[in-house]
Each structure stands twice: as structure tokens, then as C-alpha cells.
């Protein structure tokens, strides 16, 4: 970035600030997000309607809560757009500290709740639960972007000390997430961190080295038995779906059958027998895509994937047009996070990726994930509005 361009942009900013922030939102991105949220509402309803009705519950129970989560998430996203993203730097340490405290809290018995083998939740009164790891994603992305974007001694590119600082910022929450253990979130955060270091312009050896380290770490962890048995099973059933027919293999097989049985056009909304029979576990959260697969078929699924691609494409453009390295890094960090998580989740249901319990951004039921994702969207809109 040249000095001249910096001056020009500075001059432009005052003009933009006179215009309402909403007018500067990225319309295609908004369309993609809105469409996915709308589809998500239908899918969550389809996934839970018959289930709750079958034991006399309110069939709209999940629908209502999901809608409420979206409303809160949209407010958070809007809130995120109000403050100039550059000023967000000031809040980042606080956000980071809250995330780390939350991640420590989940490990304390009595506060943390165990779901599906992972201590990832803090139980709140009124049956609410929050997942600090989701918040940590934002804290880490913004925190790393902040450190890597600092200029030292006139170097354009981040130096070793910057990278090490960035890694330290990421390492503390990531280690706490590993302890839970939440393998999926760890992998997604790890991939986003490596991506951000790579695109920051740091020496290539850092990103390559980190990838190598991740490989060795995984190998050692499996050998030392640090990885829980169920996680190994999940990996094994990815390699050989018949290895564990009772649990993980069963889930993956059911997921694949459910999606495959949808055919070209699907069975129609609310008409999927696999879905209404709840043959796929966790079908309103991690396996929400199976509902789309069965009821909307290939056409519907392709539209969903296309909407995600549109979202990622706009995110790239926003990051590229960002005013500064910080904005670009936040934008690309969020892009990598979304991209890897989308692939990990859908890939898992299709048998392309191992089973890790991560929700599908914007579609899955679940407050923490929805809030974090929409705050991420808010960050993208913020960067776009101020470039």
C-alpha cells in the first residue's frame, strides 16, 4: 500500500460517513445470507416438526427458537456494522479474554455441560446453553489480524515476531478447545489461522511449517491416546464406513442414504420419510444438510452450495477491496472460516470429510453458531461499507 493511496482513501472516508451505513452493504452477500437463513428456517422446521408432534410437543418449538436465534444474530450483525471495523481493535482484547474465560469455564464441572462427548457448553438458566468456542473463532480471527497488520521497522510483511505473537493469541483458546475435546472447531480455527498467516505475506515457511506441525501433532496425539476413542472411530468410519456399524458408521451411512434417496428433485418439503422418521441423528444441527438432501434433492442442494459459493465469492471481493491489511486479513479469515466449515460439514454428510461435530453456517439450529456466523457476516459488511 502506497502512501498516496492511503491519503486518497482517508479523503474518501469522510464522504462515506455521511451516507447511511446500510446503503453501503454488499447486496449479493445479503441476498445469499438471507436466502440461506430462509432455507435454514424451513429445514429446521422440517427436521423437528414431526418429531415434536409425535410425543405431543409443540411442533414449532424448534422453529420458534431458531427464528429467535436468527433475530438476535441479525441484531448482533447489524451492531457489528455500526462501529468502524478499525475501531474494533480496541474491543478485541476484551472479546478474546471473554472467550478464554468461557473456554476455561466449560471445563469446570458444574458449569460446563457435556454434549456428545465434548465439554463445549456452558449451561445457563432457562435451558439456554452457549458455546464459547464459537465466540473464540471471532476473537482469534480479529486478534491475529490485528497483530499481523501492525507494521514494524518499516517492513511491509509480518516478521517472525509478529507470527509468533499471532500464534500465541490463537494457541491459548485452541488448546482449551482441544481439551474439550472439539476436534472439528480446532481444525477449522487451525486452518483459518494458517490461511491468515499465509495471506498476510509472512514467509512461506511459516504456513508450510504449521501444516507440517499439525500433521505431526495429529499423529502423536493418536499414538499417545490423547484423542478420545470416539474421535478415532469417527476417523476410521470415514476411511471405512463399515468399521463401526453401530454408532458413527451408522450415522454416516444413514446420512448418505438420506441424501442419496432425495434424487434429482427431492421428496418435497416435509415429505422426506428418512427425515420425519428421524433416522439421521442430530438432523436439525450438524446433519441439517441431510434434510435438504432428502427433501430438496440435487437441485435444491446445488442451489444451497451455489449460495455458499456466492457468499464466499463476495467475501473474497470484500477482503480484496479492503482499505488496509487489517480489513483484508479479517475478511479472508472469516472467508476461510466459513469455507472450511461449510466443506467440513457438508463433506461429512456426503462422506467426503471425516465426522466432526461442526454446525453448517447459517442453516444449522444452534444459537452460539448462528450468532458467531452472523457476527462474521457483520464484519464482512462492515469492511465492505468502509472501503
Amino acid at each position, binding site marked *: *500500500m502506497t502512501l498516496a493511496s492511503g491519503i486518497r482513501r482517508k479523503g474518501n472516508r469522510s464522504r462515506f460517513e455521511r451516507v447511511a451505513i446500510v446503503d453501503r452493504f454488499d447486496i449479493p452477500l445479503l441476498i445469499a445470507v438471507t436466502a440461506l437463513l430462509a432455507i435454514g428456517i424451513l429445514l429446521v422446521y422440517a427436521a423437528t416438526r*414431526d418429531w415434536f408432534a*409425535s410425543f405431543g410437543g409443540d411442533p414449532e418449538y424448534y422453529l420458534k427458537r431458531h427464528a429467535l436465534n436468527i433475530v438476535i444474530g441479525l441484531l448482533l450483525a447489524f451492531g457489528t456494522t455500526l462501529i468502524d471495523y478499525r475501531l474494533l481493535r480496541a474491543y478485541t482484547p476484551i472479546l478474546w479474554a471473554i472467550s478464554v474465560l468461557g473456554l476455561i469455564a466449560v471445563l469446570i464441572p458444574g458449569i460446563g455441560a457435556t454434549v456428545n462427548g465434548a465439554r463445549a457448553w456452558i449451561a445457563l438458566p432457562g435451558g439456554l446453553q452457549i458455546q464459547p468456542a464459537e465466540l473464540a473463532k471471532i476473537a482469534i480471527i480479529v486478534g491475529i489480524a490485528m497483530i499481523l497488520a501492525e507494521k514494524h521497522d518499516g517492513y*511491509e*510483511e509480518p516478521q517472525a515476531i509478529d507470527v509468533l505473537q499471532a500464534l500465541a493469541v490463537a494457541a491459548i483458546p485452541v488448546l482449551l478447545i482441544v481439551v474439550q475435546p472439539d476436534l472439528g472447531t480446532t481444525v477449522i480455527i487451525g486452518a483459518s489461522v494458517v*490461511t491468515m498467516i*499465509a*495471506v*498476510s*505475506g*509472512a*514467509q*512461506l515457511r511459516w*504456513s508450510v511449517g504449521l501444516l507440517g506441525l499439525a500433521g505431526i501433532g495429529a499423529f502423536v496425539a493418536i499414538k499417545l491416546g490423547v484423542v478420545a476413542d470416539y474421535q478415532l472411530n469417527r476417523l476410521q468410519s470415514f476411511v471405512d464406513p463399515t468399521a463401526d456399524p453401530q454408532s458413527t458408521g451408522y450415522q454416516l451411512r*444413514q446420512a*448418505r*442414504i*438420506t*441424501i*442419496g*434417496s*432425495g*434424487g*434429482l428433485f427431492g421428496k418435497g418439503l416435509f415429505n422426506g*420419510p*428418512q427425515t*420425519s*422418521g*428421524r*433416522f439421521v441423528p442430530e438432523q436439525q444441527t450438524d446433519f441439517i444438510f441431510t434434510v435438504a*438432501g432428502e427433501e430438496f*434433492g*440435487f437441485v435444491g*442442494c*446445488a442451489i444451497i*452450495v451455489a449460495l*455458499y*459459493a456466492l457468499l*464466499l*465469492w463476495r467475501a*473474497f471481493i470484500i*477482503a*480484496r477491496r479492503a482499505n488496509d491489511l487489517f480489513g*483484508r486479513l479479517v475478511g*479472508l479469515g472469516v*472467508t*476461510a472460516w466459513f*469455507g*472450511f466449515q*461449510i*466443506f467440513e460439514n*457438508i*463433506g461429512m454428510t*456426503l*462422506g*467426503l470429510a471425516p465426522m466432526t461435530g461442526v454446525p453448517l453456517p447459517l442453516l444449522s439450529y444452534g444459537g452460539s453458531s448462528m450468532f458467531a456466523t452472523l457476527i462474521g457476516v457483520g464484519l464482512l459488511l462492515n469492511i465492505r461499507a468502509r472501503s
Partner: protein
Amino acid sequence: MGDRSRYATIFLQILLFSLMAALLGRLFYLQVAATEKYQDAALEIQSRNVVTPATRGMILDSGGKPLALNRVGLVITADRSILDKEPDRGVAALKETAKALKMSYEEVFGKTRLCGEKVDPSLTGGARCWNGSRYQPIPVSVDASEEIALAIVEHAERYPGVNASPQGFRYYPGTEGVNGAHLLGYVGPVSENELAASTSKKYYLNEYVGKAGLEKVYDADLRGAPGVKTIVVDRKESVTSTLKETKAIPGNHLVTSIDAKLQAVVERELVAAITRARAGVVDKKGPRKADSGAAVVMDVKTGRILAIASYPNYNPNIWERGITAKQARDLFSTKTGVPALSRALQGTFAPASAFKVVSVAAAAKAGYDLNGKYDCPAEFQVGNRTFRNYESKGAGRITLEQGIAISCDTLWYEIAYNEWLKDGGLRPNKERNDYFYNAAAGFNLGKRTGIDLPSESAGRLADRQWRSQWHDRNKDFYCNYEKRAKKSQLTPYLIAIAKENCVDGGKIRAGDAVNFAIGQGDTTMTPLQMAQIYAAIANGGTMWKPTVGRAIITPTGELVREIAPEKAGTLPVSKKTMAFLKRSLRAVITSGTAQWRFAGMPIAVSGKTGTGEVYGKNPDGSNKDTTSWFASYAPSDAPRYAVVMMISQGGTGSGTSGPSIRRIYEAIFGVQGQKIVTEQAIFPSAPPSQIPRRPKVDQP
């Protein structure tokens, strides 16, 4: 933006869009290319079949009288899909049911558990689990009284999920006193193996299928198609919807050529012959073991079986409500004589003199003058062994016809020995005549008749090929006989035979050749094969494939298909030889071995007796008794029926079987004393040619 940064961004862009493309590709494979496979898999996961069995068709005799039918019992069933939805999961209902049926609650509880459901065995009272589906009402009791059934139906509120309904059971009514266990077979629940192998037959779990006899062979006709309701369930097995429902189609009736009355007579006469032999009243030799026997009556013009019986038999209704372990053991126990075995088509015995019709055909082919005279000495020397006539009697120089009538063996020894020498003796010629083996093969020895009953034996044609194969299998034993044999088998005679078998047991020796000619040695036949041959002689040379099934008719009386007689071969016998055979077989009855048993019989019967030597010992150490054979047909000038009887360890052919053969003919033709009373005849003119269209059942 530095280069590194730009390249990394481009790389990330390519990576993420490639990942999205990979997702699309995989989606296309799962949902478009391979969707059929996954749709099938999904349907299999979601659907359950509830099977309503079809009413099984009846088995009828040639006049429409039922040999197998369905009796209705009142069945108390428990429906798990309803019981499990009760607040107490059906405990109260099952307790009430147990009380009403005077059963223990544990037993009722156990019977209504699905096999595979995890239940503490101490809670089930040892009752057998249900191997059907959860949606099928599970029978708790199959013979409830009407009173209890009514009580349960009327107080539905007390017995939720419990119901009483009439259900059909296979029942063999014993029409005219028929047993018919081997002929009819039985039905039982489809086995795991049958289910696994049922890709084309489409069996359903818990369906009843034919397991033996006619029930097995004609199962596809009798079974009909069960009604199937396919329901869609969720992961908790609650029903969400009904996919399709087909009504049960009742099975068709099988009309057989069996005549119930005649079948009963034949079964009785078979027992009479056995009793006669055991009583020891037939000759000076006293009581015989008479461990088993069989009798067959065949229509010589079509090969249709009019009656077929085997002894020992068993009550066909023991299968009706589940056979007990002891009953099952007894069926296959040698102590009880293996009643499960049908001697008529599974029992193989040396045919003895009844085989001589084959020898006649062989001799005629070899150029021996059928009208010439032959020596019938008391014994015949072959090498260092002496072969004797039965009871060591000589008859001087006699015609071949007389030789058949009085069953002279020695004249056959000479002919067979000469032919054996001509064929090269122990060093067989490359070009051989093998008249005897070829004739036997032409009479279908060693070949199944192809009757429409399961598990038929082929018997054995002990020709050169068989002999050499036998030697390959056994020479090791005979060459080390003194080391390998049991102590009791180490008699000088058996050691000598073993030595012979070791050296040239693979070749036809002179002794084998002469024994073959009189139906002794290693050649064996089933009574059914014997009936096929004698029916062929009677009809002028056509060997029919024996059939029991006559036609398949629908419950509404329409003919589905007729089971037509099929030719199985033609006897390799010239017209002249055939005429000679007929003359000789008649002479057996008028002036030969069976004359004393047929004095004053107003129907002309032809036939041949046989008394087969059997080597070996009974379990109690006694020597095995001779096999009694009687193969016959009548009327001699216009034959219609062939009757064969065989009694294992029964004594002589005429002595033991003769009177029973005569009674069977008397019943067929209505003979009273020396007169024919047509009204008393089972077949006044011929076996019925009309196919009955309705079962003759007295409706209650």
C-alpha cells in the same frame, strides 16, 4: 499487497471454490448417478412388512376327498405395537391374558418378546421368543376355547392389544383311514436358510411352507400369496404411514391321482404283510424281523401313482402344533426304524429274482433261444465258488418260461458266466457286448424315476464303471483288512473276500457277473423303480415318469393346469421278447412260485417274486433276513395296474408279500371270494379320468 500475499490469496480462492465444486460433484453422484441404490436402501430402512398368511390349498385324492386340509383353531394374539403404547407397556393386559388362559405371566411375557430383544431370561419362563415382526400379532395360545376367546373379544378394554381370531392349521384328516405321512409331507415355519435362499420364491418371516412330501414339491401352488401390508416406520419403530397393502390370495388345491380308499387298503396290507412275516406263519423258517416295507400301485397306462405306502410311518399331525424334541428324535432314530424315511422311493434293496425280466431281455439280445430248454441244476460251479439255487433244489432240463416261473437261478448263472467269458473274463475285451449291463441301463436302473416327491434315491447299477470306482475308494481298506477291520469282521470267509477285493475288486469277476444276472450283489433298486419297470412291461414297453400330482385347481373350481404324464424311456425289448415276458410272468402266478397264493383268483394277475439275500448283521447280532419282493400287474390280458410290494427282512416274495398283493387287487376289482362284485370295486372300470373341481368336504 506483496506477491506472496497475492499468491496465497489466489491459492485460497482456488482451494475454497474447488472444495465447493467437490461438494457439487459428490452430490451429483449420490443424488443423480447412484440415487436408485440409496432410494432402495432408504426404503429398506423405513419399511416393515406385516404378513397375513394365505389359506393353504388342500391336497385332494382323485375323487376330490381331502388328504390335507386346514382346520381352524382359535388363536389368542398380542399386538406389540399396541401393547407398547400402553402406559405400563402392556403389563396389565398381559397379566389379564395369562389369567384367562391359565398360563403364567412369565410365559406370556416371554412369548411376546421379539427374538433379539434384550430380555432377562429369568423373566420369560423359558418361553420361545417371537421370530416375526413387531407389527404382526404374536400368537400367545393357539387352542383357546371359544369361551375364553369370546371373553377376550368382548372385554377389549381389559385386554388392549390382545385379540382372538380364527387361524388355519394344516390338518391331515385321515380320510378313509389313510395315513399318507410320507406322501403328504408336512408344513412348518420357513427357516432362516429358506428365507436366505428365497430370492425368487419371496418367502416372508413366519410363513408356513411345505417341508416334505407333496407339501414341499407343490408348495408354490398350495401356498398362495400372503397378504402384505408395507408400513413405514421411524427410528423408534412407530408407524408413520402405510405404503401399500395387498390382500392374501388363497392357495390352489392339488388334485392327486391317489385314491384314498385304495391308499388305505395298501397301507393296511403293507402292515398285514409285516405282521405276517413277524408272526412266522408263512413258512418253516419262523418269525422274521420285517423291519420295514413299502408298496406302490401304479396306473400302467400313465405312470400315475394310485397308492404309495411306506412302513414304519408316523402320525402326520404331530407337526400340527410344533413337534416335540422326542417326536423329532424318534422320526430319525434307528431304534424306531427311521420312520421319516419313505422306503418306497428312498429304500434301496437288491432286486433279487424280480430282476430276471432284465436278464431275459439281455439273454434275448445275446441270441439265446427264449423257447429253448436250459439246465437247472441244484448248483453251479464258478471257479472255486459254488452258486446254488434258492433252497438248493434242481429242476432238470426246463424251458426258460418254466425257469422264470419257478425262479431257477442256476440257468442264469450259466448264461451270465458264458457271457462274462465271451467279454474277456478278468481281462475284459476292448469291444464287449455287456448284454446284462446294457439291458439293466435300458431298464433305467441306477436312474431316478423323477417322481414328483422329494429326495428320491437312484438305486445303484453295479456295472463295470461302478465297480472300478468302488475299488478306488475301498482298496486301501481291503488291502489292510486285518489291521483295519473290527474283530467281529475277522472271519476266515470275510478275510478271503477282502483279499480278493484287494487284488481285483475293481474288475467284474465271474461271481459278480453271475450274481448280477439274478439281481443279487451290489445292484439295488427302490420299490418305485420296480413298479416303473413292471408297469412298462404291462403296457408294452413304455416307462412312465411316476406322478402323484394330477392337476392344480383354484379354490373356485377352475383348472389351473393338468400335470400330464411324461415318458421316461422305452424298454430295450423286442415284441417277441415282450410276449415271452408276459407269458412267463403269468406262469409265475399260474404254475410258479406264487401259484399257492393265487389259487381261485378270478382276476388274471402276472408277476414275479423275489427273495433277496442280504449280507451283514442286525444290531442284535442275528443275520439279516431276506428281502421279500413281489412285482406284478393285472389284468394279465389288458393290464391297467402294477402293484409292487417289498418287505425288508421279510422272508420270501410269495410267502410274505403274496397275500397282500392279492388283497390289493381284490380291493381294486371288487373280488369277493371267487366272484367279482363291481359295486365293491374301488375302480369298477378304470381309475377316474375326470378331474374333480371341488373338494368333497363336509362343511360343518
